[in-house]
């Protein structure tokens, strides 16, 4: 399409869009640095006069807030942060590894006809609330409930469609001839993929890994229904804060929300060129 310069009314629209987009994020950030006296003030405080990091400290040291005369923070969020890291990182690495194998199979060998693509995609069709029902039953029976292993298995299964199809779209862009040349040179099929295909899709692999991490880190429902006492993730902790305290701990909650979202916003910025590809299973390229 031919490119035209922008006009003044459109600049106003653009500024409006930016304000609407950024305001909720601004509010989280400001609430996270409000001292307890500003949390629930009437009228609401937009920018705290005395910004503080006490909310972040309270997350990991519940007693930190005591000097302010605020009770009610009972548990540290350390376990949730560690839990989120364990579950998301391991599930992401597994999902990308398994997805990479399947992507090469689908792209290079049009593997397994129609059934496997559908099988792998089925993880996206079902509402999580629906799959969660049998999981709780089966996992209780086999002792996987409230364990990282169980949670990671689910995360891998539900992100596999994204990693497989996103990686397939990257492999599709590499000409087969380069791999075939390596095989003619005497490399085995496996080594040809490792030494030729893999380096060529390095950027795509990186983007896929971050994208899958975003999905795993964001997951809420399975973590909510499958965790009792042994495991916890950040989204579950955030939901518990809201339930347990009826919203009186704005600052501490906002600090956790801010911590939860920061890595994803950074990851998203790094791979924004590929976000559309990931979200649409590679159907939209850029």
């Amino acid at each position: 399409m031919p490119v035209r310069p922008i006009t003044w009314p459109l600049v106003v629209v653009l500024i409006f869009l930016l304000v609407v987009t950024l305001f909720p994020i601004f509010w989280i950030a400001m609430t996270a640095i409000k001292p307890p006296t500003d949390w629930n003030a009437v009228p609401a405080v937009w920018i705290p006069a005395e910004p503080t990091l006490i909310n972040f400290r309270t997350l990991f040291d519940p007693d930190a807030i005591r000097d302010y005369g605020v009770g009610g923070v009972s548990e540290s969020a350390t376990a949730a942060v560690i839990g989120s890291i364990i579950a998301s990182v391991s599930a992401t690495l597994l999902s990308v590894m398994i997805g990479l194998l399947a992507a090469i199979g689908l792209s290079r060998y049009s593997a397994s006809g129609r059934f496997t693509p559908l099988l792998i995609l089925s993880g996206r069709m079902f509402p999580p609330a629906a799959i969660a029902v049998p999981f709780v039953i089966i996992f209780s029976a086999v002792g996987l409930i409230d364990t990282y292993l169980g949670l990671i298995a689910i995360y891998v299964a539900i992100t596999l469609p994204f990693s497989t199809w996103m990686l397939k779209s990257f492999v599709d862009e590499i000409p087969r001839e380069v791999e075939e040349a390596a095989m003619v040179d005497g490399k085995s099929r496996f080594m040809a993929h490792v030494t030729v295909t893999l380096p060529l899709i390095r950027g795509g692999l990186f983007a896929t890994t971050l994208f899958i991490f975003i999905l795993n880190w964001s997951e809420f429902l399975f973590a909510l229904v499958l965790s009792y006492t042994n495991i916890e993730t950040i989204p579950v902790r955030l939901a518990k804060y809201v339930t347990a305290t009826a919203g009186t701990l704005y600052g501490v909650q906002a600090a956790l929300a801010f911590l939860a979202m920061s890595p994803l916003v950074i990851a998203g910025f790094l791979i924004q060129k590929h976000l559309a590809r990931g979200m649409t299973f590679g159907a939209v390229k850029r």
Partner: protein
Amino acid sequence: MPDGAGRRRRFVRGLMLPGQLISLFVLVVPLLVALALSFTTWSPTRGSLFDASFEGLFNYEELLFYDTRFVEAVVRTLVLAVVCLSLEFVIGLGMAVLFMREFRGKSLIFSTLLTPMMVLPVVVGYTFWMLFQSNGPINQMLELLLGDGAGLEWFRSASLATATVIITEVWHWTPLFFLILLSGLNSVPENPIRAAVILGASPRQVFWRIILPMLLPVIVVAFVIRSMEIIKLFDEVFMLTRGGPGSSTETISLYIYKLAFNDFQLAYGAAAAFLVLLGTLFLVDLLLTPIRKQLLEGRN
């Protein structure tokens, strides 16, 4: 070379096996268990799974004909899908068209406008819950603009609570439409447009007659993906309204969650889940109809 072909087949099988195994054991097997369960009236409060007795289509009949809360949740989810997707599409398309123009700081502004879709649904729900508090910033702005007393009790009335859900969804996911439609616009070839302009077409005609038809496959992909996701809508509503007041903002997923994990009616919840799956498949099929031909032709 029969040996080479056999080795190749084994190699391909090895590539696919891990994905097949995890999908089979973590998706297909549980789904079959759920399907079997949906024909019983079992609940963990009624003893072992083996005590469950076959009740035929009892749950399904109950859901479709007697459970008004379920039917309402289905209708509500569909209405939410239509309203949210229309708004997201129109705003997203407007943003994409805006970005076909040249201006300073374009790439930075582009990145900034994409931020919402990277934020966790739970955090989005929590944030908007804070924003819509009666002494929150949104009411404060309303009072500033419209005078004292203009603030609203967002979570106390069914229609206002629904509005908070819609606003939240639209904020969260319009960037996806923007991103997908902009990719589409950027890949529209220039030649047909130039030709049309030379032949005397107005910019409006060029947009409606040439650009939009070429965008159709991309638009359908965006709608299919987003409707699949919105049928699963849970996290944001859970944080925002918990389905309240009453059950006035309850989505299907939230209702199934409450059935299974608050009331322990697992079999009944499983039946509801299967009805939703059937509905989703039907809907996706319906949405794909206009471009199926194009997709098939493109492949062959």
